[in-house]
């Protein structure tokens, strides 16, 4: 029976269950097909490679953890996780309008909550400081302060209609002149500030502080970052591993 290249490759993968008759077909095909013969060599190499990989010894605590995972508490956790994985149905809008009313103020609270959480996340240091400040012990107000405040509040209020000391000294025309001068100064001062603001380089928000660490091994990055870098760089990320396993050789120059 003649097989296509794809069927032969499937059989190479399923080699464990290939019968003797199939082996003859496979061998016949491989003898006449260089591409499949190369595929077979690579497949055999991969099998050999996997077979020669060092077997990792399971950690000693693994059996204990497996047993613990079967206990009731973990079963509950799994049940909760399974329920969460089912997904949540969105509440239909009609329900909200019917039961909460269109202008119910409670409908605005989720957005407010979201905004507050977002603000906290944007400024985690400030949030931490606020939280710690709130945890500080509150000092009791001294009795003397209470007494002074009470006395101040009990004092009768006297409102003066006289002008401010500076203007009180000046005659009426001079007072008007002073007011005009102050107005002109305020006008020009404001205009100068506007002009300066429009020509000043945009300072923007302060630069976000980042804690930067430099790593050599892609393993110290997250798995997604390591995968991305390995693919983009053509496999350079594996160089250190390969070099450690390399057989002695002269220094590698530029491409042959």
């Amino acid at each position, binding site marked *: 029976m003649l097989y*296509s*290249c*794809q*069927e*032969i*490759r499937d059989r190479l993968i399923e080699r464990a269950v290939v019968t003797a008759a199939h082996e003859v077909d496979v061998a016949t095909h491989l003898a006449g097909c260089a*591409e499949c013969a*190369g595929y077979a060599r*690579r497949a055999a*190499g*991969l099998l*050999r*490679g996997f077979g020669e990989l060092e077997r990792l010894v399971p950690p000693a605590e693994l059996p204990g953890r497996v047993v613990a995972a079967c206990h009731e508490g973990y079963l509950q956790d799994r049940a909760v996780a399974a329920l969460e994985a089912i997904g949540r149905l969105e509440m239909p809008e009609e329900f909200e309008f019917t039961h909460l009313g269109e202008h119910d103020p409670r409908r605005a609270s989720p957005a407010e909550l979201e905004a507050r959480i977002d603000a906290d996340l*944007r400024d*985690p*240091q400030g949030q*931490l400081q606020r939280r710690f400040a709130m945890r500080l012990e509150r000092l009791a107000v001294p009795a003397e302060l209470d007494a002074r405040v009470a006395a101040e509040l009990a004092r009768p209020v006297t409102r003066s209609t006289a002008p401010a000391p500076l203007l009180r000294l000046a005659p009426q025309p001079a007072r008007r002149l002073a007011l005009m001068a102050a107005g002109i100064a305020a006008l020009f001062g404001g205009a100068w500030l506007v002009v300066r603001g429009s020509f000043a380089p945009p300072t923007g928000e302060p*630069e*976000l502080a*980042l*804690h*930067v*660490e*430099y*790593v*050599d*091994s*892609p393993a*110290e*990055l*997250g*798995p*997604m*970052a390591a*995968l*991305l*870098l*390995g*693919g*983009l*760089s*053509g*496999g*350079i*990320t*594996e*160089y250190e*591993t*390969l*070099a450690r*396993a*390399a*057989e002695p*050789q002269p*220094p*590698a*120059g*530029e*491409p*042959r």
Partner: protein
Amino acid sequence: MRLATGMRLACAALGSCALLLTACGGGSSGGATSAPQQIVQLPPPPASILNAIAAAHEGVAYSGRRTLWYRVGGGKSGTQALSYSEDVLSDGAGRFAIDLHDLVVPVVHPSEEDVFGLLQKSREGFAFRFRDFRIRDVTRMLQSYTVHGTGQVKTVAGRVCAQYSFQKLALQDRTYLVSVDNATSLVLAVEEYDRQGRLAASMTFDRILYAAPAAGSGYHTDLPATALVPNTDNHALLGFPLRRPTLVSGYDLVQQERIDAGGRVWARLVYHDGIEPLFFLHSGRVGHLSATSSAPAGIDPLAGVPTVRVSRAGSWTIAHCTHAGSEYVLAGKVGERELLAILRSALH
């Protein structure tokens, strides 16, 4: 002592000879050693040629074998390198496959080479689409690069090729010398030079056959991905609001999708400058797919200054940031400063 001095002098003399040969354009066609600054600059090729090069990457059916070479790190003498050959095939309709053929440098035990081949196979999509040189958009590319013909006619894998140089305008920190098959417009050889004019990477086809691959050929299969909606935070699709970078100058956003990988939901945004891609990935605070996945050890995901881990591999820089339970990954052929600026624009 005298012997050591003599050897040092001899090495210096040999080095000078090699430099002279290099400057004279000596060496084989595959050995790319001439500095890009010495290349003659002819007028830019017409747009029709550039468009044909752009279309050929996925539009030409072929199968062949090629050798890739990468300078690694630099080492003390700058001689560390990774080199391998691989079989590549494309059906001219977007399907492709890449298989490692031989790891040339470093020479390792066959089992190690097989594992490396397996890793390369798992990344063939990245390799074909993003590792390999290609013109992704001619208009965008002409805004980011200066393009010249070099006037050199090269023979690569028995095919007559015209050579072009692509130099990045920003900082002029990278130059590609590209040999293009005159008949098919397929790129058959690429040499990438860094700012100092040193060869950073190269790819050369050793043989190529222009024909549809055999009927039984296996092709790369993509992971399932869902396209994101432009200009929204895609909260409903991702389960968390996507924080898009607002500062990616010189690059166009060309692809945005949700992918599930590494136990998390990721938004993957792909930009390019006409040739080089740039990646931005974000996985939100509630982006875990399973209870077992977690942030990298040693990093507090919910408090403090955002932590960024930066690494380099060849011409690529990558930044991995954890902040408030979110993970961000940025990768591009740009400097660390540019990557961090893009990251800051997403975090603000």
